[in-house]
């Protein structure tokens, strides 16, 4: 099975979970017999032994650099000039370049991840007549924190959903939202849950980077952590208001906020308004050890997302030794049982359960142990098998 995979990012150049999911899924698919051509919209020297990775760039462009966030790209032209390119233009450039690249390639199926690649996916389908699988990791309503979002993005999503041969949703929640928001019949949408590949998680070492927090835990303090982008979708204002309430009952609690985003300044002000500025720690964006150690230093990980299509971070927390609280408005709540679940808007209940967990180490340990068993059983092979079946159902047609 030859697969043309259209993705927007891959680790280590990822800004979020999309790149991680694409990479781990591709690896599992390759193991199940897929021969993958992965087309990226920027230049990357990173080698992956289980697939070919090509960067799609227009003819006059020498290399493309991606900023950490989604918003801008730097093009180095053949003549050495530098140009900064917006995401809308980048999307179009990717579409055109993909149209050129596929002229020399053979494949059975086109697999496009999220709206950013849908136009390229449609062009590939138009040029070759091959089936298009639209894989949905999030829709505009998720990213806009439950609001309408950008109508131009919605239009691309809508066109992609209509024209695709099959739609893959990363959770039942996403499937329902696609059906509701875009009037797509549910039987066109297949749920393929994300998973976690344990081999991608680097082990902890004995020396935690948050020496201060470790020390203070020895003095009777607790740590509650959130890791993720500081953006409306992630629901952090709810978490901080809950934190304000937690601090009244468990004053020796730190709230560790790891990540960056357009909401940062607002969150800092909110922490101050809650009277807990001396206990909320903003680390900024972290990778590698500082990122891993943030999970492990905590007593509890909280993902208060307003709308989370899947949500990998609670599993990462569990992998690194920390139980999780997740919002019911997340895809992960469909697959992870042993965790605390709250409505993102129910700040009082969030505070109640955080305090309950912090004051009860047997609850904490039990919750983590059971969640860890779930984590150990997880693998991408189930998702890969589902997808291979879907590929086959669209390539082995009854009608010639």
């Amino acid at each position, binding site marked *: 099975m030859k697969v043309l995979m259209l993705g927007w990012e891959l680790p280590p150049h990822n800004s979020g979970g999309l790149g991680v999911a694409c990479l781990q899924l591709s690896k599992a698919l390759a193991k199940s017999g897929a021969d993958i051509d992965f087309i990226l919209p920027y230049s990357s020297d990173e080698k992956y032994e289980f697939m070919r990775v090509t960067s799609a760039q227009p003819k006059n462009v020498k290399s493309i650099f991606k900023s950490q966030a989604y918003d801008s790209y730097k093009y180095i032209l053949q003549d050495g000039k530098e140009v900064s390119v917006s995401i809308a233009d980048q999307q179009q450039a990717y579409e055109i370049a993909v149209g050129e690249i596929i002229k020399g390639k053979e494949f059975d199926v086109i697999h496009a991840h999220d709206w950013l690649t849908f136009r390229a996916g449609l062009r590939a389908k138009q040029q070759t007549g091959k089936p298009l699988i639209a894989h949905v990791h999030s829709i505009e309503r998720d990213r806009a924190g439950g609001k309408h979002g950008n109508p131009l993005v919605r239009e691309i999503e809508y066109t992609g959903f209509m024209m695709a041969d099959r739609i893959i949703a990363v959770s039942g929640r996403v499937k329902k939202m696609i059906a509701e928001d875009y009037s797509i019949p549910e039987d066109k949408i297949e749920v393929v849950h994300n998973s976690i590949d344990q081999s991608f998680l680097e082990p902890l070492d004995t020396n935690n*980077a*948050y*020496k*201060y*927090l470790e*020390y*203070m835990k020895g*003095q009777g303090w607790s740590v509650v952590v959130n890791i993720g982008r500081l953006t409306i979708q992630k629901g952090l204002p709810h978490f901080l208001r809950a934190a304000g309430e937690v601090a009244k009952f468990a004053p020796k609690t730190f709230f560790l906020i790891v990540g960056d985003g357009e909401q*940062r*300044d607002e969150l*800092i*002000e909110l922490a*101050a*308004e809650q*009277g807990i*500025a*001396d206990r909320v*720690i*903003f*680390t*900024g964006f972290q990778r590698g050890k*500082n990122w891993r150690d943030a999970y492990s230093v905590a007593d509890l990980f909280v993902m208060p997302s307003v709308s989370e299509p899947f949500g990998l971070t609670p599993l990462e927390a569990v992998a690194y030794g920390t139980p999780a609280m997740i919002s019911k408005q997340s895809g992960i709540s469909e697959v992870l049982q042993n965790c605390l679940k709250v409505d993102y808007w129910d700040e009082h209940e969030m505070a109640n359960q955080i305090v309950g967990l912090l004051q009860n180490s047997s609850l904490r340990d039990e919750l983590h142990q059971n969640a860890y068993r779930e984590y150990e059983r997880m693998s991408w092979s189930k998702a890969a098998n589902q997808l291979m079946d879907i590929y086959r159902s669209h390539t082995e047609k009854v009608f010639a």
Partner: protein
Amino acid sequence: MSKKAVVLYLHAHQPFRLRHYTIFDAAKQHNYFETENDYDYDNKRIIEKVANKSYIPTNRKLLDLLNKHPGFHVNLSLSGVFLEQLEKWSPDTLKSFQELVKTGRVEIASETYHHSLAFFYNREEFEIQVEMHRKKIKELFDVTPTVFRNTELAYNNELAEWAESAGFKGILAEGWDPVLGWKTSNYMYRPAGTKNIKLLLKNYKLSDDIAFRFGNKDWNEWPLTADKFTNWLNETKDAELFNLFMDYETFGEHQWEDKGIFDFLEHWPAKWLENSENTFMTFSQAIEAFEPKAEVDMPNTITWADAERDLTAWIGNPMQQQAIKALYDFSQKVIDTNDWDLIEDWRKLQTSDHFYYMCTKWFSDGDVHAYFSPYKSPYEGFINFMNTYQDLRFRLSEKGAEV
């Protein structure tokens, strides 16, 4: 008719800025003020830069003026943290200040060593910092200040009562019209509730003509010449003294040399002194020469900052309020450690500039005040400060304090 006096007062201060300090530094290193790897924050670089642009050339001019004109007098305030940095990185600048004071016609005001707002948070700590400053001034200049100025000229009746009981002869404040009513700043006053201490009020219009407007080409009085400014003073009938209070760094740093600020400083005193009825005075001379015209009642705190003339630039938003409260909540625990390094770090964190960097009042208009912050945003200033605060908590805890 008695003489008309200008009381020229220049305030020099530089904070110990914080290095870029992350949560990963906390509990590992306590070198908050070692800034040599942070260009934008580097204290040594800034002292050297401002010394070259402002302190050295201005002191040279002031000394010339003192030598040339027997009627020229000037007043200074030099924060303790500023003097400490001069000792470390610019001894020549310190020497030039000492030469000025040696003339006997330059008076130094008292203030808190750490340029803090301790008066409003911890009276005992405040008094210690005033005493530390007194000692430093005695050690470096062999004089003892008798006139008090609080950080940012933050003043209220209570401060005046304190200053009187602490033995000061005079105290400085902003001459803010909405508070003064019919009174003008051009006379000596007595603070409400006091008996002996005298109050000198800043003439903010004339002061700001030099400090803020001097180089502004959009100002309808631009360019400000020595003749013009002297005429304004001479034409003011209802006046005994003109209290011209400003940041020392007005000369060469806020107003640049190429805008002519040094020429102005050279020529205006000569022009003013051409009329034998006119003179310059130190604070003490003015206090000696003039009797209070009336009582001034300032129950609420007035500062010399912004259109609001209050403390909102330092403690106006919740970030600032929490940061400063958190710091002073540690007071007793810090003192109880008897660890002088820890106590001194805690005091240097009290310097008002750290809270000023967290001010969001002007952040949205992106404006002139940004010039005085090393941070890209008030939020970054807050995060950096709070990370050092966390480390302070670690050090207290290690010393056995319950934190």
